[in-house]
């Protein structure tokens, strides 16, 4: 892949993400009803004027719930990625600038962790931390660490032999200062771009955890939690299933469209294999 045109799919992804971010930002003002208020309409009403996505079993407006759910999903994703990126980044940079044995050990451990699905790692952690918004976010953040650590390691390992690193060392810059002030700024831009790759994974994990009842708890309008509630009304009210599901699909798809062109380049599974 020598040429790097910005393809129309990436542009579409960026456009969709921008739209979703705007919708999430203005959700409280745009939503016709309070997403938590019951009996704003009839129970299990089909989509109609006034209730565009229909209503759920408590007569809550599904459109308002799905709209406000975007804030939760994006919020969880953002916080989890920030934590995961910082912790993974520290591990990756430290490993890249440490001795041979430490490096081998860390990489091996990361590879082992990486071979387990991130959703499952988050699930195992939540099982012990206990359910809830903040615990789910922490669990998802930790589940992203192996990926980010591996990516950061790859970027930092490229910097290590560069002249400026040697120059800083000769100038007597301390190890931690070298990493924080000299190396980190050089890779941070790429790292932040990589950061967006975690969004799709984080949103899917969050929805999965909430669907199982281990993440965000009802009545919060998290998409996975709405789906869990709608499970019992599959025949009577299929719209409870369709609307939040499509919301997850579209959000994850738009992040994937952006990240897709990079994924092959950074995927640790493909690195190292010729």
């Amino acid at each position, binding site marked *: 892949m020598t040429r790097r045109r910005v393809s129309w*799919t990436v542009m579409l992804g960026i456009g969709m993400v921008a739209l979703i971010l705007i919708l999430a930002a203005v959700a409280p003002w745009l939503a016709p009803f309070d997403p938590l208020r019951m009996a704003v309409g009839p129970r299990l009403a089909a989509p109609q004027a006034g209730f565009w996505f229909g209503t759920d079993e408590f007569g809550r407006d599904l459109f308002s719930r799905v709209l406000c759910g975007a804030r939760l999903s994006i919020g969880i994703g953002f916080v989890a990625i920030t934590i995961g990126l910082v912790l993974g980044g520290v591990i990756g940079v430290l490993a890249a600038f440490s001795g041979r044995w430490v490096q081998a050990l860390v990489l091996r*451990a990361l590879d*082992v962790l990486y*071979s*387990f*699905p991130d*959703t*499952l790692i988050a*699930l*195992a*952690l*939540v*099982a*012990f*931390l*206990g359910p809830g918004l903040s615990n789910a976010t922490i669990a998802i953040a930790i589940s992203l660490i192996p990926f980010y650590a591996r990516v950061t390691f790859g970027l930092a390992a490229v910097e290590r032999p560069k002249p400026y690193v040697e120059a800083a060392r000769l100038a007597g810059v301390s190890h931690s200062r070298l990493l924080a002030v000299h190396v980190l700024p050089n890779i941070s831009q790429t790292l932040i771009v990589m950061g967006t790759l975690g969004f*799709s994974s984080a949103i*899917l994990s969050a*929805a*999965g955890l909430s*669907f*199982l*009842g*281990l993440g965000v708890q009802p009545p919060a309008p998290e998409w*996975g939690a709405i*789906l869990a509630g709608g*499970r019992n009304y*599959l*025949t009577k009210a*299929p719209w409870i*299933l*369709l609307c939040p*599901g499509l919301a*997850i*699909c579209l959000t*994850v*798809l738009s992040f*994937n*469209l952006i990240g*897709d062109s990079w994924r*092959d380049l950074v995927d640790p*599974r*493909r690195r190292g294999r010729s």
Partner: protein
Amino acid sequence: MLGAIARRLAASAATLIAVIILAGLLIHIVPGDPVTAMMAQSVTATPEVMAEMRRHLGLDLPVWQQVGLYLFHVVQGDLGLTIRGNEPVLTLLIQRLPNTFMLAVSGLGVALAIGLPLGFVAALNRNGLGDSVVMLIAVLGVSIPSFWLGLVLLQVFSLDLGWLPVAGSGWRNMILPALTLGVTYSALVARMTRSTVIEILGEDYVRTARARGLREWQVLSIHVLRPALINIVTVVGLVFAYLMGGQVIIENVFSWNGIGRLAIQAMLQRDYPLIQGFIIVFASSVVLVSVVLDILYRILDPRLSRP
């Protein structure tokens, strides 16, 4: 070859020991007292019972002794007893393991059946229409939450059309979950197949085969497909691990009696020994499958099997 397999087995054993230690440590990330958390829903929880349980789980010992003891028990096949029902964790999990494996293997079969041809077609039409369509399907595939796809399939085929049962454990019940898993993970397979086949199409030996005047289908079905399949064996293990992970949720959607469903019940009831046991059994399955595939790869690739 035997040396390489031995090294692989040793590495796998080390991995499993690390997983067991981590699983043992997990109980210490429980905020507050784990026994109180476990007993929160129990009516019989007198202080005496709770003290007994604390002692039984070894929670009164220093952390390193607890983990050492846990490791010591696990390697002997003792995963402890469940909090609810006092049943041996290992027995419970082993009973359900065949169900889980059956579903996982069927799902993998579907994923390969869909993903391999799609990846092949995409690679052969590289940068063409077919490629774009397949890659777009692949992006869509990884963007759909598997449990939602499962719910939609359940709604359409079981409830609306009435073709398949909603719950149960017969082979007819396996169709939908296997299809759900297969469709979800076929995107991953298609991606990997595509990049492998593109790599092989550029190899000198493919050019040699063409120079020999073989028919194009012969070139593709022998000189490209064979090495491609051998390469793909190396990544099937990874697909399998991710598929097993997705299956934990899917088993709950379809009420499939596997270890995933058991695990979620345990998580909701805070049955910590059972969750720890699940983590260990899950990791062992994944590691075992990847070792088997590794050996298979070493047999299939003549460069490794015939030094």
